């Protein structure tokens, strides 16, 4: 296989990964890494290329959410302190951990992410009470709904902050956006409305990933020949996915793709256990 053929293969794979990632709401990163590992790419190159594509898709879609007024920039900024420090921790862990361990952690995180984003959401009870710390930090906000602006209160800031550190660690360790865990921290722990949680999470992913990208760059994890088709492919695929998502019933598609995600998790855990990396 020559360079042109290999690049085309990766670009098509990245397009599919971006498409799948956007439809399932998991992000392109968690799909492209197992795909590259399947193509016998070293896991360090795989997470380096994936991380770059994560910055592209997050920044691209955050651009429109911010303008529409869904993202809460104060919540994002505060929690980015936790995610960026976590991302630095995670990026350093990649340099000392065995690739097999990284692969197994990846598989488990992928399984959990898929579970978290596919399960039905529960209704929250105490969303109308205020929280002293959240008020002091001016985190409460409002977001547009068809019936006008809907205001909300933020809760349990320290718990959310701690979970965000873990999300940042996993992002830096695995080269993914870890959007599912970020949404869990905001939606479940901090009781922030789902639409605000997902868009603010997206807004934070780019900054989180940029924090580990510096370390990856210096360590040589970002190879231009591999990152080029991955970044362009995932970006194009996720834009395509966002269009399709608006046009079709998403719950059916999500169920179909969850099977694919499950298979990929098993692949990563299996390869990690057998050392076939």
């Amino acid at each position, binding site marked *: 296989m020559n360079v042109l053929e290999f690049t085309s293969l990766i670009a098509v794979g990245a397009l599919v990964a971006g498409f799948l990632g956007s439809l399932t709401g998991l992000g392109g990163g968690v799909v492209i890494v197992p795909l590259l590992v399947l193509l016998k790419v070293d896991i*360090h190159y795989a997470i380096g290329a994936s991380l770059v594509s994560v910055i592209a898709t997050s920044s691209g879609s955050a651009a429109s959410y911010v303008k529409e007024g869904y993202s809460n920039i104060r919540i994002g900024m*505060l929690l980015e302190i936790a995610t960026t420090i976590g991302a630095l921790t995670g990026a350093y862990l990649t340099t000392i951990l065995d690739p097999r361990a990284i692969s197994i952690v990846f598989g488990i995180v992928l399984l959990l992410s898929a579970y978290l984003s596919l399960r039905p959401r529960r209704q929250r009870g105490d969303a109308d009470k205020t929280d002293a710390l959240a008020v002091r930090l001016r985190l409460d906000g409002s977001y547009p709904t068809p019936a006008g602006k809907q205001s909300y209160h933020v809760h349990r800031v320290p718990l959310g902050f701690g979970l965000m550190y873990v999300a940042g660690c996993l992002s830096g360790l695995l080269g993914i956006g870890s959007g599912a865990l970020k949404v869990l921290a905001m939606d479940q722990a901090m009781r922030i409305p789902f639409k605000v949680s997902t868009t603010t999470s997206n807004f934070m992913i780019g900054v989180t990933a940029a924090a580990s990208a510096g370390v990856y760059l210096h360590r040589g994890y970002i190879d231009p020949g591999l990152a080029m088709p991955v970044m362009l492919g995932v970006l194009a695929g996720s834009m395509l996915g966002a269009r399709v998502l608006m046009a079709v019933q998403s719950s059916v598609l999500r169920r179909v793709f969850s099977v694919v995600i499950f298979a990929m998790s098993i692949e990563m855990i299996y390869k990690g256990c057998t050392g076939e990396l």
Partner: protein
Amino acid sequence: MAELSNQKPPEDRPPNWNDERIDRVIGNLLRIGVIASAVVVFTGGVLFLAREGRQSNPDFHTFRAESEALRSPGAILRETGAWNSRALIMLGLLLLIATPVARVMFSIFAFALQRDYLYVLFTVIVLAVLLYSLFSGYLSDNGML
């Protein structure tokens, strides 16, 4: 028009910089950064494939770090000047990494205009972590840290 309805802005913030306008600027900043980066990466990619497309594929199975020449922002800029196609791709990726950094820098300015100094502090912390990540390895290699 959000600005028009806001005839009497609070004394402590300039009337032109309300939250909606800040959100708009951040949105544009992100979009421009991603588009510019994609264009540069694509250009570098075309050049790369035109020059090296027929060579046999490098082995990505074993990890050997990217050549020293392309592992720091300064080196990437120097190599791009020499029309090195791999460096041009890296320049595009660097633009991409710089996009969220620019967004954080703009947020410092926006919070300062709103006299929200607590959030200026939070944003400065995030910027410090980002700059540390980007430059610490480079500085330590050169004995500056």
